């Protein structure tokens, strides 16, 4: 029988309405998300039947918003992998209330990200060729293997961190659970009763996974960057693309985590658990990452600009040209680098609201940055294209692509909502043990 403290019972009471039943408000919310998904399904149907001509992608610009979304979602999955893994390894106490949300972001984002690759594939009927004719020397093969391994690892990490909680829910007298849900929790708790040997096993497994997940996450995003870096295209063929992508991923992951914490804190009145200091500490992490990311960005574009190599210069002109991508490029640097630094560095602005607002603008800027990595380079071909329609040279996002992008976001939120029906967003077992100490240091 798993016992928990009063804090554990308090957390269960907060989340009980969500776990026990689905309210009308939740039903409406799920209905709205399903409506967005339905529009996306129609867009997907059009894309599958009419072909990729319904998207903005053409012979010249073969990748567009889907690939930008793919990199973005894999990037935000770092929220759990690195923040949670690293803080677990260093035994940082304040991590405990936020790790569940971070790990959920990781798993769900890692599920959603690759879906955008599938949307980008022209011949889905040949998808199995990826396995049948896999070539180890292809970065695409590395990517498929790395992401599937990373997803498996993230699910295991989330599960390990939740086993104790499942056991608490199973034995809970606070939660008024339906039969099938109690059976589900009993199944997921795998006979865990917090015996010393079980504690030891779960701790060893958690430590192993915390160690594994960090290099794994770094490898996954490096491999992702090498899809670009291994090609001889202006703006892509760069030796710093691996660390640049990794840093950008941790950065945007931290931003999404801050936004999620802010929303859930307000929504479920979690002010006793998600404290101001969580935002401040995550803000500090964001500040350091922003500085590092800014340094990489400056280094990357200074080198490209100084070299004056013909094709690279064309790309730089596009990115700096006010009539082309100049506005977006400036926004990525101001909103994505300078603003978060300013907000966190100014003591008066170091408040949850301001930090969250800066994070939201930063996350949007990071998405735009992914777009600017993908599209302008493809619009700068090594062999110039002449006498063809402008639509073949320049890319513009169609409604089908927007619909599927919004569907991806809707699916992310839907999976988060479903997950919250099966677990408390604050880990009961972790927080219950240390809550007294947290309250004292608040």
């Amino acid at each position, binding site marked *: *029988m798993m016992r928990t403290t009063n804090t554990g019972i308090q957390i269960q009471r907060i989340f009980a309405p969500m776990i026990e039943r689905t309210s009308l408000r939740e039903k409406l919310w799920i209905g709205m998300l399903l409506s967005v998904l339905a529009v996306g399904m129609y867009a997907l149907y059009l894309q599958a039947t009419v072909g990729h*001509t319904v998207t*903005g992608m*053409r012979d010249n610009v073969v990748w567009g918003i889907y690939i930008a979304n793919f990199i973005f979602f894999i990037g935000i999955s770092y929220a759990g992998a690195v923040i949670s893994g690293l803080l677990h390894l260093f035994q940082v106490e304040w991590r405990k209330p936020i790790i569940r949300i971070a790990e959920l972001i990781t798993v769900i984002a890692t599920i959603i990200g690759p879906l955008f690759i599938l949307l980008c594939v022209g011949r889905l009927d040949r998808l199995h060729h990826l396995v049948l004719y896999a*070539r*180890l*020397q*292809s970065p695409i093969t590395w990517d498929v*293997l790395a992401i599937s*391994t990373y997803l*498996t*690892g993230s699910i*295991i990490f989330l599960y*390990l961190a939740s*086993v104790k909680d499942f056991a608490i829910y199973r034995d809970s007298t606070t939660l008024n659970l339906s039969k099938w849900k109690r059976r589900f929790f009993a199944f997921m708790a*795998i*006979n*865990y*009763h917090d*015996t010393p*040997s*079980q504690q030891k*096993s*779960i701790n*060893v*497994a958690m430590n*192993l*996974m915390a160690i*594994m997940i960090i290099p*794994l996450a770094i*490898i996954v995003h490096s491999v992702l960057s090498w899809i670009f870096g291994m090609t001889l295209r202006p703006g892509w063929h760069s030796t710093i693309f691996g660390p640049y992508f990794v840093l950008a991923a941790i950065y945007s992951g931290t931003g999404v985590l801050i936004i999620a914490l802010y929303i859930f804190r307000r929504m479920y009145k979690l002010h006793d658990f998600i404290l101001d200091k969580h935002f401040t500490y995550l803000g500090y992490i964001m500040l350091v990452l922003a500085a590092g990311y800014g340094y990489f960005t400056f280094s990357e574009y200074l080198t490209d600009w100084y070299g004056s190599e013909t094709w690279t210069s064309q790309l730089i002109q596009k990115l700096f040209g006010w009539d082309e991508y100049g*506005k*977006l490029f400036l*926004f990525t640097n*101001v*909103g994505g680098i300078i*603003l978060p630094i300013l907000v966190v560095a*100014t003591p*008066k*602005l170091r408040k949850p609201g*301001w930090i969250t*607002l*800066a994070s939201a*603008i930063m996350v*949007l*800027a990071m998405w*735009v940055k992914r*777009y600017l990595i993908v599209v302008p380079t493809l619009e700068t071909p090594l062999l110039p294209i002449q006498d063809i*329609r*402008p*639509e*073949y040279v*320049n890319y*513009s*996002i*169609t409604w089908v692509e*927007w619909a599927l992008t919004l569907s991806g976001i809707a699916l992310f939120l839907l999976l988060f909502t479903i997950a919250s029906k099966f677990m408390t967003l604050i880990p009961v077992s972790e927080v219950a043990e240390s809550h007294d100490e947290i309250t004292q240091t608040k």
Partner: protein
Amino acid sequence: MIMTNNKTYISSLRYRRYLHCIIILLAFWSGTCMTSLTAQEDTLKTEEPPAEPDGFKSKMSVTANQFPDGSIELNALLRVKYDESYQGVPDSKIGFFSVSPEGEELALGNMTTGANGIAILVVKGAEQKTDADGNFTFIARFEGKDAIKPSETDLLIHPAKLDMQTEKADSIYLIRVTATSASPDGPQPIVAAPVTIYVKRMFSSLKVGEGETDEAGFVEIEFPNDLAGDENSNLEITAMIEETELYGNLTAREVKPWGYSVNAEVKELPRALWSPHPPSWMVVTFFILTGTVWIHYFIIMYKLFRIKSEKPAAQP
């Protein structure tokens, strides 16, 4: 004191208001930027060329190649105008006919056009009837199909041939070509006709020499001795008089071991994306990395199995 506090308060308010403005502007700007992503309207529309009420007009052209053995190769090209340019029509039946002196059409056979819109028929010149001037008349006819209108064309050629002889003198290769046309009085020389020598390469023919026939219809052309042949040094040499109004194309071919042998031994490919096998260091690194991760996953699974199989202690 109160004044100072008030001043600080007012300046902090102002400061905060400025930052408010900056951040709201940034948020607004980000929205504007997002909309600019879609600013370029996708004007692409798949425009099908409007079909004429009674179908597309087709265009037929036919050429002939005459060989020394008297055979004639008829090449019919069927095209339609599509998207402002003529394109070959594949998979269409072309009927070939010869015309007798009396004007009667004699069917030679039907051929189907390939992907490039060309249908080829080879006939024996000796079996064809000539008109009073000794000319052959051929007709290529397309009966029409689907939305494509019928079309036909004819070709009038005079029987002629190229005779090619080769000679190797020390390290010099010579090609002697005689061009003659048929007449009731026996073969007549074709005078002042340009003769071109080609060698077949992988994708097309390489022009290696040219000359002009003299009064006897004869020309001698030197052939290069530094060409790559197949593994037996063979080269396929073609002499041609091309696209004459009277004779069409006159062609003669011969295979001679005049090239240098290219070793057919398969050499190891350089490192490239299309290499059939990954380098060994990559395979080793891959298996070490993936193996390490998955072995740890299995260890963790084993730990979970241990947890599951443990019997709970008796409750106090």
